């Protein structure tokens, strides 16, 4: 099995031809074959702008000589093109999206409306403080929610995504170590079950990665972790609840041990949505944790971003938070942009990005929090955990649950041992779900389980929706185990595309449209 993640396929699989007749247009009812804009474009313009000639330009002789080569479409053509494209996408709004570790929950539309209020959406990041008091006040309010929910004293708001937050947390740790004169601590302990971003971020921040094994019950081997601690350890980097969907029962012990050994505890907060409003990470001894606003607090995933990854920090790390810093004094809110202006005691390690973070996501997240309230946030966590356990309890007799009867947290982990000898691969099984109208679960992650299938229903599904999903998965599992492989072979059969040849894509990369490529293809 090649390593892959989130259910990525690795090859085209069996090339079974469709049995349905072809159409003249190439479209199939509501399934549209849509060309690229470069094939559709014909010099039309979808905006009306005056044709200003700049005879006496001030461009210093750097005026463009040739054309860019961009195609243009009128407004109706543009809308039709992108609407037709959109119809080839699966989405939360159209169905249950059980991607474990990704948290595909409902995205409330009030949040979209709030983010588009001109006072937020049309506000310049470097407008004077007097013109931005409301926006800075919103950030301050969100900071209060994040620190209160996590029980942590400080939060850095600028990281633009989860992995960016990890980097921010590790750079704060690095700065704190250097301030203590212990910059020689370079080793970070990372469980083998961790998200790929964890070891990548540790390396990115100039640390070395030392893997900690998992125990057969899916928990991090706390004894092995403690044995690896030493004077060169900078930090441990744990996910809790972990990537197997389990709460680490010895989390406080591990926190105490790393602190005693002079290191810090970074927590990957990707799974905070299982415990928000119920368990405060600050009570567990965590020093830094990023919060994926696009997971726990419902900002839309948008087909792969943008996200937001504020990092909460313990007392030990708070002083090292990056610029800019939000301060509040008698004159109101303002941003401190340089080290020289930083309040006493602050030792910012640097800057994560231009400006001050993903404001558009902050507005959405605060809108979500205010709507739920503390009671709703807690209820959402409980419902997410309840729904995952309901799935585990309903499927564990036909699929294989590697860590027994549970309970799990917000996601239910299965392995592929129930498919052994059936002739159906894990990938086949997942692709058959597409034909049933479902996005597959996360597959082959976490790596510590063979043929992992990680199901995260979130709190957004009704019981009827969960029951239907369970019925489909039970039926698929029973068919596969009975050796009825027909619907699995070459699945999906009913998607806009059959399995795509990823090997070809990687071996002969075609990463942009070119007229000559078109010619080659036609030959």
């Amino acid at each position, binding site marked *: 099995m090649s390593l892959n993640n989130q259910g990525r396929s690795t090859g085209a699989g069996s090339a079974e031809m469709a049995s349905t007749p072809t159409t003249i247009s190439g479209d199939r009812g509501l399934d549209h074959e*849509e060309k690229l804009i470069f094939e559709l474009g014909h010099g039309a313009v979808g905006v009306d702008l005056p044709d200003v000639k700049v005879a006496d330009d001030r461009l210093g002789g750097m005026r463009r000589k040739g054309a860019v080569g961009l195609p243009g479409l009128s407004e109706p053509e543009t809308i039709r093109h992108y609407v037709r494209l959109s119809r080839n996408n699966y989405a939360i709004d159209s169905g249950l999206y059980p991607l474990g570790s990704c948290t595909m929950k409902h995205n409330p539309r009030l949040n979209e409306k709030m983010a588009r209020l001109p006072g937020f959406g049309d506000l310049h990041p470097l407008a*004077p403080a007097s013109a931005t008091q409301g926006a800075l006040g919103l950030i301050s309010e969100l900071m209060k929610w994040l620190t209160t929910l996590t029980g942590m004293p400080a939060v850095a708001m600028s990281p633009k995504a989860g992995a960016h937050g990890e980097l921010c947390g590790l750079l704060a740790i690095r700065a704190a170590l250097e301030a203590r004169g212990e910059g020689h601590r370079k080793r970070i302990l990372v469980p083998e079950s961790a998200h790929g971003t964890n070891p990548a971020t540790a390396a990115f921040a100039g640390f070395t990665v030392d893997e900690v094994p998992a125990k057969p019950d899916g928990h991090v081997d706390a004894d092995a972790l403690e044995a690896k601690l030493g004077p060169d350890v900078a930090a441990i980097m744990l996910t809790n609840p972990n990537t197997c969907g389990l709460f*680490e029962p010895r989390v406080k012990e591990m926190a105490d041990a790393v602190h005693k050994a002079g290191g810090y505890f970074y927590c990957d907060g990707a799974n905070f949505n299982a415990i928000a409003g119920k368990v405060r990470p600050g009570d567990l001894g965590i020093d830094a944790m990023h919060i994926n606003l696009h997971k726990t607090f419902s900002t839309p995933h948008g087909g792969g971003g943008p996200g*937001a990854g504020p990092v909460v920090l313990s007392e030990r790390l708070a002083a090292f938070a990056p610029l800019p810093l939000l301060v509040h004094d008698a004159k109101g809110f303002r941003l401190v942009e340089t080290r020289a202006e930083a309040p006493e005691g602050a030792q910012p390690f640097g800057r994560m990005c231009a400006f001050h973070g993903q404001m558009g996501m902050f507005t959405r997240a605060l809108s979500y929090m205010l709507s739920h309230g503390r*009671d709703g946030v807690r209820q959402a966590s409980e419902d997410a955990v309840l729904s995952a356990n309901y799935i585990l309890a309903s499927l564990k007799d036909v699929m294989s649950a590697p860590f027994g009867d549970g309970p799990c947290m917000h996601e239910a982990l299965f392995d592929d041992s129930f498919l052994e000898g059936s002739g159906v691969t894990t990938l086949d099984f997942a692709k058959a779900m597409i034909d049933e109208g479902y996005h597959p679960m996360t597959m082959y992650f976490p790596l510590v389980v063979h043929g992992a299938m990680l199901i995260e229903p979130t709190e957004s599904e009704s019981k009827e929706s969960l029951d239907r999903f369970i019925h489909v998965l039970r039926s698929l599992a029973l068919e596969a185990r009975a050796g009825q492989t027909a619907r699995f072979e070459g699945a999906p059969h009913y998607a806009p595309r059959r399995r795509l040849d990823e090997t070809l894509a990687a071996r002969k990369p075609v*990463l942009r*449209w070119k007229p000559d490529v078109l010619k080659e293809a036609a030959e």
Partner: protein
Amino acid sequence: MRYLPLTTEDRRAMMAKIGVSEIDALFRDVPDGAIAPLSAFNLPDTQGELEVDRALSRLAAKNIAAGSAPTFCGAGAYKHHVPSAVDHLIQRSEFLTSYTPYQPEIAQGTLQYLFEFQTQVALLTGMEVANASLYDGSTATAEAVLMAQRVTRRSKAILSGGLHPHYAETVETVAGLFGEMKRVPVSPGSAEDLIALIDEETACVVVQSPDVYGLIRNLRPIADAAHAKGALLIAVVTEIVSLGLLESPGAQGADIVAAEGQSIGNGLNFGGPYVGLFATREKFLRQMPGRLTGETVDAEGRRGFVLTLSTREQHIRREKATSNICTNSGLCTLAFTIHMTLLGEEGLSRLARLNHAKAVTLAALLGKLDGVQVLTPAFFNEFSLKLSRPAAAVVNALAAKGILAGVPASRLGGADDLLIVAVTETATDEDMAALAAALKEMLS
């Protein structure tokens, strides 16, 4: 709670199926005492849509939106008109509420627009390949320096003083861990001598054009000098509309282009989310960070698109990945692509010319005022003024009159008497006259 479908009855039935009688039985691995009572959270309870709307609208009303006032703020973020179709299309459920396209059979919509986006970015920048975007221009610049360090196996970077200071600080924070980041001071409105500093240890030279003070730079001599020493030229663009009128960085010899794409399709959003554009030469493809979409065929031979070359990425390579980045700026790339499709060649050219024409007019208007000196000889839609009074005080005074006069350079660590002024197609003649009149009053 309106977003939670489960009823009390449902919850009871589900717990019965699981075999527990209370929800906390599912949290049994949480250490004793670590489940906090609700009262431990000093926060409000559930509110209806009306109440939340009211509370946030009240905050929004305290700000001065760019569209509600004459606005001349730039310095890395620009107020442009975004066609209505853009925001409508990006709010389609299928785009807004889908995940990263890891299941390509049911994500062709996202994958195809990313392929279109990559092509548009490559064309605009004059480069061979572009990725599916990074977080923003500043992080794209940091990634570009890291990539240059990998490609050249050298560690030193030379940063032009015209590089946006936030960008330079972002680069220093990340790439500075692995080598010297030499920032070269510049006199606003002129170019510093970067060529003399390039040596055999230099991985890259980073030059922004138009620079943070608005000055258009000629990249070609710097590219030639860098190449002669085995170093790369990284070109940074914070106002992507400029490429509708200016020679592309690729045509001037750049090896990597890192740019901010916010101006096309995306609002100001008080600084984010934006969209980082990243393009390079094909020979560096395997050292490139970020997601890439590629063309392939499905089992029936039909054209389709997939995320590809992921062996560079963290979910496969873990600590050996080219970057820790796990996302792109998906929906912002879609907005960029749609707006760029509406513009096309002719629309982009007109937009760029309109911006430049307004800037030429405004520079002439302001240059006539006592106490104002235009410092930037060659510019696109942004230039710097030397004022006879501290710029921050002037900006604050004008904001009180409902005019957003620009960005004081002191806000970015620059000189007190410098004001960076940007003007786009959204500024009317009346707006420009209002700025001139207010400045005249302040400075005379």
